[in-house]
């Protein structure tokens, strides 16, 4: 037997500076993801109904946004179809004053927090990088470089605590993102500083085409918490009641000053990575079908019907309200955004440098010339003939 194969006690005085630090056992996740739906657990019926309404609207939002890519109204859309439970629960776990740090996949979480979907989709439409006011909404800009938003959440939570404010930050990241250095650094800082942060990993099985097995050899992603000295918890990410409870507890624990935690929500990315991706190149249809059986919206609907909290009429009314949201989104997204080219120079620095001043004048002149050309008599004929040529 080597030490690597079997560790034991050595009955000798430890090295001088060494001392036991903390018991790792309470930090470890359970073997199985935590579940509530279908277990017969005592659950608040109103909460289940609210979750259901949000899931249905979330699903409809994903469908509508995907449709908008086909109509050329969105440049790209990373859908969270199949992941609505975690998206919605993340938003619901937070109080007014708390902050959400979403990734590109988490527009639904931002919308569920109450932001205007048209503003949230600005990044993916391409009229500006971030369309909403992060300070007013307490939702950080959608982050595209993987895991880079995690240290921001830690810094913000740390700052709030230094100021004595009651603020928790919830940061979202994908399974692939946990391999990034920033994931490691953020969790380590959070634990050392005991910052009021919750890290939510949505393990949806893939980083674009790469499955989790090629991403990590850890027993689970939740197990990573113990290495930093924070609890890791594993939850069924398609069970909205379970995610809602686990995230709520993690957020309130952070609020009480008991430090950060890591939550792994086990879920599945039902759609391709984005509308531009072809998922048939790297996974079997049967796998997708199996997950459809475990769909978060269907799970909740089944639960409500079995508890006789929902009937056909209730389901119809919920679908109708989702349809209304989709119609409004569609109509507003079908209007061309008002572009302000001169604004490009406005937010580079507080004050423009002389060089930017000069470049702004150049663009202004180009825009004026364009405007004059299109306003000149005969311009309409000209553009008409150009069209005819092409």
């Amino acid at each position, binding site marked *: 037997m080597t030490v690597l194969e079997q560790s034991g006690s050595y009955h000798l005085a430890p090295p001088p500076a060494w001392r036991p630090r903390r018991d790792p056992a309470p930090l470890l996740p359970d073997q199985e993801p935590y579940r509530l739906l279908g277990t017969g657990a005592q659950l608040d019926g109103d909460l289940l109904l609210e979750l259901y309404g949000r899931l249905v609207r979330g699903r409809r939002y994903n469908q509508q946004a995907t449709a908008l890519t086909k109509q050329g109204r969105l440049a790209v859309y990373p859908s969270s179809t199949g992941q609505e439970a975690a998206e919605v629960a993340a938003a619901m776990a937070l109080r007014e004053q708390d902050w959400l740090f979403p990734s590109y996949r988490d527009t639904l979480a931002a919308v569920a927090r109450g932001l205007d979907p048209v503003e949230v989709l600005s990044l993916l439409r391409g009229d500006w990088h971030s369309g909403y006011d992060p300070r007013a909404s307490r939702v950080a800009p959608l982050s595209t470089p993987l895991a880079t938003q995690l240290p921001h959440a830690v810094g913000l939570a740390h*700052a709030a605590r230094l100021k004595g404010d009651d603020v928790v930050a919830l940061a979202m990241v994908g399974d692939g993102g946990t391999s990034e250095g920033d994931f490691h650094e953020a969790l380590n*800082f959070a634990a050392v500083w005991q910052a009021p942060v919750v890290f939510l990993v949505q393990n949806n099985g893939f980083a674009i085409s790469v499955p989790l097995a090629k991403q990590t050899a850890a027993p689970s992603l939740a197990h990573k918490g113990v290495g930093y000295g924070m609890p890791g918890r594993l939850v069924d990410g398609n069970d909205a009641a379970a995610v809602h409870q686990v995230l709520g507890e993690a957020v309130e624990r952070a609020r009480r000053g008991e430090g950060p935690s890591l939550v792994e929500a086990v879920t599945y990315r039902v759609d391709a990575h984005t509308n531009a991706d072809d998922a048939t190149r790297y996974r079997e249809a049967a796998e997708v079908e199996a997950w459809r059986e475990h769909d978060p919206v269907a799970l909740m609907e089944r639960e409500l019907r079995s508890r006789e909290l929902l009937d056909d009429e209730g389901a119809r009314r919920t679908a109708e309200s989702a349809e209304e949201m989709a119609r409004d989104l569609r109509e507003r997204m079908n209007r061309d955004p008002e572009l302000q080219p001169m604004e490009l120079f406005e*937010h580079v620095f507080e004050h423009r440098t002389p060089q930017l001043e000069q470049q702004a004048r150049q663009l202004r002149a180009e825009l004026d010339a364009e405007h004059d050309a299109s306003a000149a008599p005969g311009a309409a004929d000209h553009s008409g003939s150009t069209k005819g040529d092409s």
Partner: protein
Amino acid sequence: MSTATGASVNAGTGGEAAPAAEARRPQAARKPSTMAQALNRALRDSLAEDPSVHVLGEDVGALGGVFRVTDGLTKEFGEDRCTDTPLAEAGILGTAVGMAMYGLRPVVEMQFDAFAYPAFEQLVSHVSRMRNRTRGRLPMPITVRVPYGGGIGGVEHHSDSSEAYYMATPGLHVVTPATVADAYGLLRRSIASDDPVLFLEPKRLYWSKADWSPEQPESVPEIGRACVRRAGTSATLVTYGPSLPVCMEAAEAAARDEGWDLEVVDLRSLVPFDEETVVESVRRTGRAVVVHESAGFAGPGGELAARIGERCFHYLEAPVLRVSGFDIPYPPPMLEKHHLPDVDRILDAVSRLQWESEWRAGGTPEGGVR
């Protein structure tokens, strides 16, 4: 090879605004101070004046930083205001971003130039563009202090001149002091700025000394103003940071030995770039040499030479020349003297600025005759 201490630069008046400002203020006690002490004083005064200022870095607490720039700050302001962080540069800058989002004003210390690279992604993808991305709603009032440059006998990874990377990133200010007074004033200005500032501290000038007293930052012109450190008529040396004392020495040697009266412009800030001061000088002298330690290819000198060429073409008697470090990984310490621009190399460049009429008849600025 020159090992100028910077004393000659520090002895002169700082910026064009300094004498006037001085006359108005009762003379504060001037004491000999090193650049490191002036930077320390700037941090202390900023921490004392503004409760939102927080210093973060590796070994900035009990040790006072490896260059002692944060000496005593944790003791005076507590661990929450001057914090020893875990050892992770991306994490330090990344958490600083979050702190800035919440209204704090972080001052981050990177231990050495080459150890700032792990933070590069946070710098480029977030710090530099957060204001722009959010339409001005999330400014990033972060100062990143980076000791940079060679000449201190450092082993590998301790002597890089990384300014070109930062200059090439829209949204960052890049500031570098060359005198003790500027070190204080520019750091105060940088910390007070609502824009992110890469504050490059020339390591080999940390121990340069000047009689100096903490002056109001107002006595140092705002970020983005160059200054003429030595007035001259024959040619302009355009430089910054660690190369300023070398240029000053070269100018004195040129006056003494060659009869050239060289003007020396200290940029102080690479972004924003004070084009007007440089252009005014070069139009007057008709000749220019840009001097810096960092590699020449795609380096700061290329940008400066191009701008001088665009704005001064009809005033130039010779092409703008560059004296820079070679395009090689920074050399081991026993060889660095061959790499760093020194007085001889600067004077050699000046000598190639087509002084003789024969140059025009076929000489080349590279030396030799076509």
